[in-house]
């Protein structure tokens, strides 16, 4: 019985292309989560994320023979494919994007959620806040958004993110630092007010 845990991604890809289904399943299990999460955070849509994931593996099988080890690992190769598909979906969906949310609804949301906190379950609040944070991330310029998604949400290291985006580690650091400052500013209305602080962490939205 083959032990795929010791095999590299490149070996698994080679065996998958040769028809070894178990090798393909092992490779799929390794890469699926990262690709799906990246696509989901970039598109904010589970359907689109699954579409991207499926297309990435189809393309990987069709174009896998063009993969060169010298140009990076299979994960980076698959990420490049995923990034292209995400851009394609963004272009496709751009005409249907909602209008940008004005800041005042965020302030209203904070007061609304606090006022009805007793009626709302904690899960609903968390979902709502998570949605707002995702919207704030989606409004970032693309190079900042890529850094936040890869480092903060997909939890890649700076080095891995730099390899994915073909830039220097220092560039990732600076982009992340700037993106965090912008995000903190955008999410200011959601932060705990002095009154909420006094009620304790239960009343805090974030």
């Amino acid at each position, binding site marked *: 019985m083959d032990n795929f845990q010791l095999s590299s991604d490149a070996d698994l890809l080679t065996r998958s292309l040769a028809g070894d289904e178990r090798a393909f399943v092992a490779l799929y299990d390794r890469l*699926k989560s990262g690709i799906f999460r990246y696509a989901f955070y970039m598109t904010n849509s*589970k359907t689109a994320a699954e579409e991207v994931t*499926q297309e990435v593996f189809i393309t990987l099988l069709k174009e896998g023979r063009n993969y060169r080890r010298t140009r990076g690992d299979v994960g980076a190769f698959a990420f490049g494919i995923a990034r292209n598909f995400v851009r394609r979906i963004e272009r496709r969906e751009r005409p249907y994007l909602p209008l940008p949310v004005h800041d005042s609804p965020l302030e209203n949301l904070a007061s609304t959620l606090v006022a009805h906190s007793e009626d709302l379950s904690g899960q609903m609040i*968390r979902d709502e806040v998570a949605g707002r944070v995702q919207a704030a991330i989606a409004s970032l310029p693309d190079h900042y958004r890529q850094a936040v998604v890869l480092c*903060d949400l997909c939890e890649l290291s*700076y080095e891995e993110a730099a390899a994915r985006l073909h830039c220097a580690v220092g560039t990732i650091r600076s982009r992340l630092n700037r993106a965090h400052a912008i995000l903190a500013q955008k999410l200011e209305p959601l932060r705990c007010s002095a009154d909420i602080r006094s009620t304790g962490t239960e009343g805090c939205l974030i």
Partner: protein
Amino acid sequence: MTCQELNLHLDNYMRKESTAESDGDAITAHLSTCSDCRRLFEERNELERSLQLVRDSAPRSSEELDARVLANYRRLVSEPAVAPKTILSRPAILAWTAFAAAALLLGLAPIMMRPKDIVTIRTQNPVPQMIAAPPATSEPVRSTTSQMRQSARPRHLRKPRHESASPNPALAAAQVVRSLPEGFRSLMYCDELSCAQDMDMIRVQLPSAFVMRSGRSLPQPGGLVNADVLVGPDGIARGIRFEQ
């Protein structure tokens, strides 16, 4: 540690990534003394909590996706292998482009270098013998078509474009009554100039005795005299001009 340095290392400190222990102590010490940086630290902590919320709320991919991907894999593997495409590298593409350009230039070079504007016009043509008699040298007169066409086709003699579309060239010729260019003597017997089409000018050399016989005086009798003859496409000479 300054506030600026803390700002640079804060992300690393919060991620606990590649931050030396001494740096961590320095950050902690600075945070205990600087209220602005402490506020920034709390702000980033709240942001980190919100990001954690987003991470936790991310959906999981469905089992249907796994099934679809596996089905696609089986379908693609069962298909006959497609012949790999020949992908040329960039240097190879450049080399082939340069080769094609060189081959094209080599192929066109003989055509471009050919002296096609030099033509040999023999004076043995159906113009009247007394006018177009070959010179004593009997050598062909060389002329360039470009020179001829520039000088032999004055603008007012050139046929307008719409005339070429005329269905009856004879009718068009009858309608066009023109005079010879300045300096030319008519050689026609019926009308002054009945050629409706472009004419060529042929430079000929005539014996001076021949010229004097035609009633023209020459400053230096003897030798050869240059003359321009206007010849229509039908081969009939219509005018002559002696070089001064």
